[in-house]
């Protein structure tokens, strides 16, 4: 029955609808953008009404929020965390420094373009983005999920070799387990 095209559509719809309303964010503030997360989560902006809340471990989280610059040392941990997360998983790039390096464009220790290393679904620009911008980023992600377009994880699986090559260029001493999907 499930092979029927129409029923698959209904299943997808229900699945996406459910995913859209429970976005659990991994509590991993990689950079200074993390300072706007507590206001977003607390009383005034209250992101929990959109189903956004913190999750303590990677295996329970749906969204990896890259809040700002990534140093090469953190990038290693972030890749590891991303690969530990279970499907469905999404990445939000938060702040100018994930988009083009921002003010750290000439720093020897921070990466400049995040989407060469991890598949990014939504970018939020600004330095730092206001809580309203963060909420609109989450709303955009929900929209993409509902349409079935937030398929960064699939992209990562398909182009794993390309991503790995980029990652290994930054991290010469690769000691992480090679996950095999």
């Amino acid at each position, binding site marked *: 029955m499930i092979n029927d095209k129409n029923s698959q559509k209904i299943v997808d719809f229900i699945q996406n609808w459910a995913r859209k309303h429970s976005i659990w964010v*991994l*509590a*991993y*503030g*990689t*950079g*200074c953008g*993390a*300072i*706007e997360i*507590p*206001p977003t989560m*607390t*009383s*005034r902006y209250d992101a929990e009404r959109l189903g956004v809340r913190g999750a303590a471990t990677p295996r329970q989280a749906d969204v990896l929020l890259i809040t700002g*610059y990534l*140093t090469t*040392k*953190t990038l290693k*941990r972030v890749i590891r*965390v991303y690969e530990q997360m279970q499907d469905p998983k999404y990445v939000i790039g938060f702040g100018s420094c994930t988009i083009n390096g921002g*003010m*750290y464009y*000439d*720093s*020897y*220790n*921070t990466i400049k373009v995040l989407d060469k290393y991890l598949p990014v679904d939504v970018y939020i620009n600004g*330095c*730092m983005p*206001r809580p309203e911008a963060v909420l609109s980023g989450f709303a955009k992600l929900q929209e993409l999920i509902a349409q079935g377009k937030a398929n960064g994880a699939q992209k990562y699986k398909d182009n794993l070799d390309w991503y790995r090559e980029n990652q290994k260029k930054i991290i010469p001493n690769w000691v992480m387990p090679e996950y095999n999907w």
Partner: protein
Amino acid sequence: MKKYLILQKNIQDKMREKATTLYLGPQHPGITGNMMVRLKVEGDTIVKATTEVGYLHRAFEKLQEKRNWLQSFTLLCRFCVPEPDPVEESYARAVELLEGREVPERAKYIRVLMLELARLGSYMLWYGGQNGSLGLYTMGQWSVGDRNYILDLFEELTGGRIYHMYIWPGGVRRDFPEGFEDKVLRTMDYLEKRVKDYDDLMFDNAIFQKRTQGVGIIPKEKAVEWGVVGPVLRGCGIRSDIRIDDPYEVYDKLDFEVPTAEGGDIWARALVRRQEVRQSIKIIRQVIEKIPSGDYYNPIPNPQKWTLPKGDAYARTEAVRGEVGIFIASDGGTKPRRVHFRGAAYVHGITLLENLLVGENVADVSAIMNSLGTCPPEIER
């Protein structure tokens, strides 16, 4: 059954090695930033703690050598995210010391207002963090929510919620907008009411008292030598405050107390901070009352051609975490030769923490880290 016995024997052999290594972090150990503490534990008592930092190293000091004297300000405020203004202020003051530039009286008062508002905002975040590290999450909802009112004031005055880049060499960037003084006073009235609620929720809470009293004790006689500064030092019963000892801006013209508490544990530090919130409100009221009219800015020349005389300067400011300072060295050019930042967390977060944690319980680690004001972006810069 036989297999089971072999397994049991293996486990017993392995258990002879009693100490276990636990990794706290780098994924959010309960403070404002990422750092890792490697804990060697026996049972749940820590026998050795080693910190590992560097997850947030952006090489600010290297980048500032490539920027001119004014462009540094965009980088400076990112040194420590919860409280950026003291860093801006000490850099501006170091530049003024080196150049011998006069600052108008009104600008000094506005700077004090900024510093104290930043202190309040940072303490609001500390209220949430300190209680959150003990599992009391209501406080965070209250205080972080109330912090938005302070950020609103910042936004109206400077245009930014978190990063202001408002204090410049020679003064501040713009004057008060219309009706700003009233808004500040109204916010202070509101906060004064709220800190009473915070006391009921936090200091009367039996869990908070039991979890903090007698935990993370710093001995009084060793404190200065170990590099303890700020509220943590005052929590050891030593009256030390750069606002009084090495006065800057107009702190010597304002009337405020430096609260201290005896004991040197988390509880004593919390008591000091509780009083300091009230003192900050008092200082802000005085500033609004005493602020003179006049210029707010002593203009600097074209920043692209602005050179500073050869030499160096070091300016210190009392921030929430303790003493922060900026050392600048100039070779007479348009760009700094060297900018070096001194943060309180640089001492508190590494050597002091490593020594304090020995003998403590695993569950108290993030409470101790929070009470010391550990701020990793300040350590790593």
